């Protein structure tokens, strides 16, 4: 038995391609999820009746069921009713729908921590509800949401690795393929792990920088005064 750790540099270009797919997948699902999540959160904060209930049911469903099950339903289940996606698209759709539910909750928390008196003040100036949300509530909520949102980004980047199961050649998928041929499981997956970690660290730092960049004195989730 070969006890030496071996890493073949020729793997690197393929692993890098996989990493790019992982990042594209994560980027697409986060962006879509942010748009949908924002709408869901607005529905949960500002509406009542059917719209509120629909949004709440959505959030409950996607937070209450495993992402892997959702992925299986979308990729292997939907073709039964004639809806068929490429593996990459299935991944984006499943992960996007899932992260939307989580992001909706983060946005909702941030929106609700904007002091309600400011909404009254905006209305007293003659702003419409929409203007109030746009000029007063969202600029504050979007700043407050950065920390939880960073966590979501890290989760999604990591959990995107499940898409190898439906045949996407993401970082995990490429690692699996190479290792199955070379039998260098330990070396390969250590390298794969390091690549995930590197991206996670870079993005975490970037978001911390952004958070500081847009920081406003007195604007915190807990400090509700002034």
């Amino acid at each position: 038995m070969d006890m030496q750790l071996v890493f073949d540099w020729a793997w690197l270009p393929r692993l890098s391609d996989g990493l790019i797919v992982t990042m594209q997948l994560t980027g697409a699902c986060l962006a879509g999820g942010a748009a949908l999540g924002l709408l869901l959160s607005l529905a949960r904060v500002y509406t009542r009746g059917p719209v509120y209930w629909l949004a709440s049911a959505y959030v409950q469903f996607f937070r209450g069921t495993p992402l892997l099950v959702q992925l299986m339903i979308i990729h292997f289940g939907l073709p039964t009713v004639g809806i068929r996606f490429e593996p990459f698209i299935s991944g984006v759709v499943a992960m996007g729908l899932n992260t939307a539910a989580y992001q909706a909750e983060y946005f909702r928390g941030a929106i609700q921590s904007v002091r309600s008196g400011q909404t009254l003040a905006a209305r007293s100036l003659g702003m419409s509800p929409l203007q109030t949300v746009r000029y007063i509530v969202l600029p504050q909520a979007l700043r407050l949401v950065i920390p939880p949102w960073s966590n979501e980004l890290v989760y999604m980047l990591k959990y995107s690795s499940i898409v190898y199961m439906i045949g996407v050649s993401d970082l995990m998928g490429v690692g699996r393929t190479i290792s199955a041929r070379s039998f260098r499981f330990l070396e390969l997956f250590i390298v794969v792990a390091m690549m995930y970690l590197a991206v996670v660290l870079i993005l975490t730092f970037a978001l911390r920088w952004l958070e500081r960049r847009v920081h406003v004195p007195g604007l915190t989730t807990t400090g509700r005064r002034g």
Partner: protein
Amino acid sequence: MNSDSADHLLRVEDVHKRYGREEVLRGVSFTMERADTKVIIGASGTGKSTLLRCINKLTDPDQGRVWLENQEITGRRAPVNRIRSQMGFVFQDFNLFTHLPALDNVRIGPQRVKGIRRREATTLAQEALATVGLKEKAQSYPAQLSGGQQQRVAIARALAMSPKLMLFDEPTSALDPELIGEVLEVMVKLAKEGMTMLVVSHEMGFARTVADEIIFMEGGVILEQAPPESMFRNPQHKRTGEFLRKISDLYGESE
């Protein structure tokens, strides 16, 4: 439209409001003329804040009508945002926009509500800040200002909309005693310059200096309404006299 409503700057007619079982306003009527200053007093929970909010429709009255000049804000199809933008509102706890520096807090109304171009809105905002004596704090965020300064920015924010009427809901009661004076000073100046002001406040020094009338509310109605001196000297109701003595003890009378 009521034929004589146009003669008054503000006309409040038989306003009622209930929260659940509690009838907070039980038919309030009064009018204000241009450049009037009226001060509303009354015990806690008698509906003073509710009345102010019914006037600019931050709260919907259940019944009754309110006109600003000849515009009825309570009308079924009334352009509420537009009428409301002509009434400034100053809150007890300031409610400045946390994410905006003082200048932007003041500018955002003219710019976004009235659609005034940025440069002119900036000039308006600077003038309003100068009026409240805070020109040099234009770039400070609310969290970097004292309570008194925040309240003056809030007054500037309302002023920048060139309102026809200013509503103040206990503008000094959240302030430390040493900061009250600077806010009252601005309000006295506004009153003397001819702003129409409806002020909920128990600062009797202020009332005596500038109020044309004091409105005493009790149990959701106006119990008595009279110029300060005559109300102090000769209250028509026993309750009025008792209440005036009580707040004079609590707040003192000196300016």
